[in-house]
């Protein structure tokens, strides 16, 4: 999976999870996935296991982050930073999500905002 897709799928998944105090530890998942790459065929399971252990209560988001194909440490670090920023932005928008028309509250408006940020931040992928 492309790192950019993994980051935003993880951010979307995080919206539907109860946020533990140390949710941000899931940002280590891309770095762990990259570190596991020399393990060859065991890289995927090892990265998944490490991601779950790092953030057990935020495991779906961490697993999605670990599923990205990272080409280097800079790539993985950028994915971690973008995921942290997007997750924090989406968390700050929670109050606004409650103000939208009742038909849109919940999953629709959250996924919509995530989709908009996917494109709005796309230039960062080329930095």
């Amino acid at each position, binding site marked *: 999976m492309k790192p950019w897709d993994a980051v935003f799928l993880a951010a979307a998944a995080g919206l539907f999870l109860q946020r533990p105090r140390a949710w941000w530890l899931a940002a280590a998942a891309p770095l762990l996935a990259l570190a596991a790459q020399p393990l060859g065929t065991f890289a995927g399971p090892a990265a998944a296991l490490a991601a779950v252990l790092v953030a057990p209560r935020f495991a779906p988001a961490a697993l999605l982050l670990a599923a990205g194909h990272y080409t280097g440490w800079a790539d993985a670090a950028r994915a971690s930073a973008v995921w942290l920023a997007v997750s924090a932005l989406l968390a700050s928008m929670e109050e606004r999500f409650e103000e*939208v028309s009742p038909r849109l509250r919940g999953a629709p408006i959250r996924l919509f905002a995530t989709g908009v940020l996917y494109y709005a931040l796309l230039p960062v992928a080329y930095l």
Partner: protein
Amino acid sequence: MAQVLIALAPALIAAVVRGGVTAAASLAAALSVAWGVQCFFLRRAAFHESALVTAAIFALTLPATAPWWLSALGAAIAVSLGKHLGGGAGNSLFNSAALARAVLMGLAPGLLFAPRWPAADGITAASPLAKEVDSVATPLLDLLLGQHPGSLAEAAPLAVLAGGLFLVAVRAIEGRVPLVYFATVSLFALFLPAGDRIAGHAPWLAHNALLHIASGGVLLTGFFMLTDPVTAPFTPRGRMLFAALAGAATMLARFYTPYPDAAVLAVLLANACVPAIDARTIPREALS
């Protein structure tokens, strides 16, 4: 809203003069579809100024030779997704015109986001902001007169500027917002170190504040998008931060990414930051 329509009129007229029948069809399609979609959502046929303003601003972000159906599709997205499904009337999270443009960039990047836009005369040439191997510098006078390939808003930057100044003069918008945006764009243009693409292919884009203000969507963004009261922060200080953030994002994308112009994406990013800006700028006693 009527004042905004009046302010947009010079830019719309200039776009039609430059783009001819294609531009006129594009604008007509956007305005009529936006009106129809608004009538559908509100279930009554009336003069919906806000939908027309959104459609006009969106259409001005399109290339001069954009087909009418693309304009119609974008206007439908702006009013339906931006105004109604994206939060509901008065609660939009994102600027509707910028949102429609971003959605179309995802759906039809070849039509909307080519570094080589067709000019009104049909000749394909690089945008003044392109950072390509064969890019050539555009003189500032040509930029101001719209003598270069680009969007309909770039057909007459002076007309957009006149419309914006009119809005400031009649106090329909807060003048500090475009001022901070243009100042941030200028400061970044003057002091940001040039990225590899600029240094290698388009060195005239470095340290050239006027070029960056007059080209791309900067004027339209500063006067007509960032001043949208629904998607901007509540406090004056918040709106200054919001405009500065949009300016910084616009210039970072121009300097360090292959994007020729990402002003509309900067607007969406700034919109997403509004709750965070409000949380830090609205006095606590006002919240309680």
